[in-house]
């Protein structure tokens, strides 16, 4: 299986430019997730790779083949669509074998392949049914099955789980993760759901307005977001952002805001020197707050008890902040609690460029 490279990819719809200059490398056998809010160009990018949208400029390389002008069928890929895109007039077996029948594979081989894949997806009992006679989850599995029997080099997924209810989505997500472990193929997966992105991807590509904001492993994106957008997009509940000033007191840099001052570790001192005495944006993950004495006194405005955790809504520096704490007993709203934040767990951003400092 070859690696896939997007080089200077551009897409215009008439006079509207959707993607200006996209460059992305996907390694052989990698599970890449394109994630971002709606309208960020992730689906367009996927559809260009699939060959369903024309490419305005640049190249799509699969291995050392430029496929950007080729028909979808010449690109050796399989795709799972958001609405499953099953053929309504064919039964499950026919749906799954359509590509093989077009390729004039011999009948016995087709049957074995379809049965094999159907068995792994628990679809054996439904092979004679039409899509309309299946539940949402089953249709989703048929769509997967149709892609799997192809044994294509690259698998594309266009928000395949977004039409399922929450419980089924979790289940299918796990099945997908297992499947991707089993068959090591190039997979490109589009979603707007950062949880799906984090749990499935070897590599996550966060996009906004047709540009790549950051590409990296889930851990990289979570620990070292390159900018405020990625920081706010990845992680749940989302990161809190506060305005602060970078000041030096007694040889230690700290982020000082309205009612709080968080000392920063010395290791970051040299890189932050240039921003001293300037306004910055401070990002604190809800999970970075630790309850303990001697910390910031913060009111609990709202308490969302989930079980092992609670998400508290509080106020700091005039802003609403979310705090995630482990709980045994629910914390009641109206209380005041003390929280500390470690300096090496906060993220700092330039207020203008929003780039991480």
């Amino acid at each position, binding site marked *: 299986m070859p690696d896939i490279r997007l080089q200077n990819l551009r897409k215009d719809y008439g006079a509207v430019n959707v993607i200006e200059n996209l460059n992305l490398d996907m390694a052989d056998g990698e599970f890449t997730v394109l994630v971002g809010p709606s309208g960020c160009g992730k689906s367009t990018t996927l559809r260009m790779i699939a060959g*369903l949208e024309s490419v305005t400029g640049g190249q799509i390389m699969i291995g050392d083949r430029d496929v950007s002008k080729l028909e979808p*069928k010449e690109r050796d890929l399989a795709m799972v669509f958001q609405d*499953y895109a099953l053929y309504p007039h064919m039964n499950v077996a026919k749906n799954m074998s359509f590509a093989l029948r077009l390729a004039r594979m011999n009948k016995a081989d087709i049957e074995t392949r379809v049965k094999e894949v159907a068995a792994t997806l628990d679809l054996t009992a439904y092979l004679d049914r039409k899509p*309309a006679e*299946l539940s949402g989850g*089953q249709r989703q599995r048929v769509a997967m099955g149709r892609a799997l029997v192809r044994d294509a080099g690259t698998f594309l997924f266009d928000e395949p789980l977004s039409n399922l209810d929450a419980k089924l989505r979790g289940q299918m997500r796990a099945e997908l993760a297992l499947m991707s472990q089993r068959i090591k193929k190039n997979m490109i997966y589009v979603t707007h759901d950062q949880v799906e992105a984090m749990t499935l991807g070897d590599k996550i590509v966060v996009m906004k307005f047709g540009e790549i904001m950051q590409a990296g492993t889930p851990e990289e994106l979570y620990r070292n977001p390159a900018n405020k957008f990625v920081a706010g997009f990845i992680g749940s509940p989302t990161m809190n952002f506060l305005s602060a000033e970078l000041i030096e007191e007694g040889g230690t840099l700290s982020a000082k805001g309205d009612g709080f001052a968080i000392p920063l570790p010395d290791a970051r001192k040299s890189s932050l020197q240039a921003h001293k005495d300037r306004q910055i944006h401070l990002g604190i993950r809800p999970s970075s707050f630790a309850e303990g004495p001697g910390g910031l006194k913060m009111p609990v405005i709202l308490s969302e008890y989930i079980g092992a955790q609670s998400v508290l809504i509080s106020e700091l520096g005039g802003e609403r902040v979310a705090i995630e704490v482990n709980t045994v007993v629910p914390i009641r709203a109206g209380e005041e609690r003390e929280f500390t934040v470690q300096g090496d767990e906060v993220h700092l951003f330039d207020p203008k460029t929003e780039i991480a400092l």
Partner: protein
Amino acid sequence: MSIASTNRMTPYLFLAPAGLVLAFALFYPICYMIYASFLDWNPSQRIGEAEFVGLRNYFKLFSDDAFRESMGVTLKFAAVVVTIEMFLGVGLALLLDRNIRGMSVLRTLFILPMMIAPIVVGLMWRYMYHPTVGIFNKTLKSWGFDGIPWLSDGSWAFASVVIADVWQWTPFIFILSLAALQSLPASAIEASRIDGASGWQQILYIKLPLMLPVLIVTLLLRLIDSFKVLEVILVMTNGGPGLSTEILSLRINRTASEFRELGEAAAMSNLLLIVLLILTFTMFIYNKAQDARAARLRAVEEEV
């Protein structure tokens, strides 16, 4: 009467005026026609004066060569025009189902013939087919070919009326097919492209099967219509030359006005009515079967 039963009656109350009109405008004439078909009735007589002859008109029809030929022409006409129109209409729809600049104008142009009154269509084509001043023969002659006896030779005349009907009614099939095509699930077609289907294979394996329910209803509608065609042929050939284009509705018209055999004309009308009823019932049953199938699928879906 309780409120519930009054409520149940309300829709029928509102329907009653339309029902009354229908009874007078439809059922009364039909009954009248059925009764008339049992009479030996001359237009100069009042209906009460006509002699009751039982089924004689019908027996006479079955042994009447002219009627049999006319029935044959009608069947041939319906089969030929509907087949050609289906192929052309669906083909055009497949061809024009794309987003190109100016396509909407083109689509509108294509459906214009359907909006012209049949009498006008007949006149238009009669002029175009005119042996000396018609555009076809003039063009042929200017290219050095002989003129074609469009309306004066039996086989040419049949072809000519077929062409005129195809010209007028292909758009009907075209717009219905186009609507069906545009309501097809776009992603299923995209999926077939990824699966490796060529343009033809997409049409053959995905588009046409998915359009089939609409195509069947369209076909039946056109078939019913083509059995009733009258004006265009009346104006163009009046059934001639000989009986070559005398379709059933023309035959009925002639039997009533020329041969002054109202009873026989009524019997013919009844036979035509029976043919149309069979077609209409086929369509009705087909629709019912589709609905039942959809309902069954919905039930299964709710269950799983």
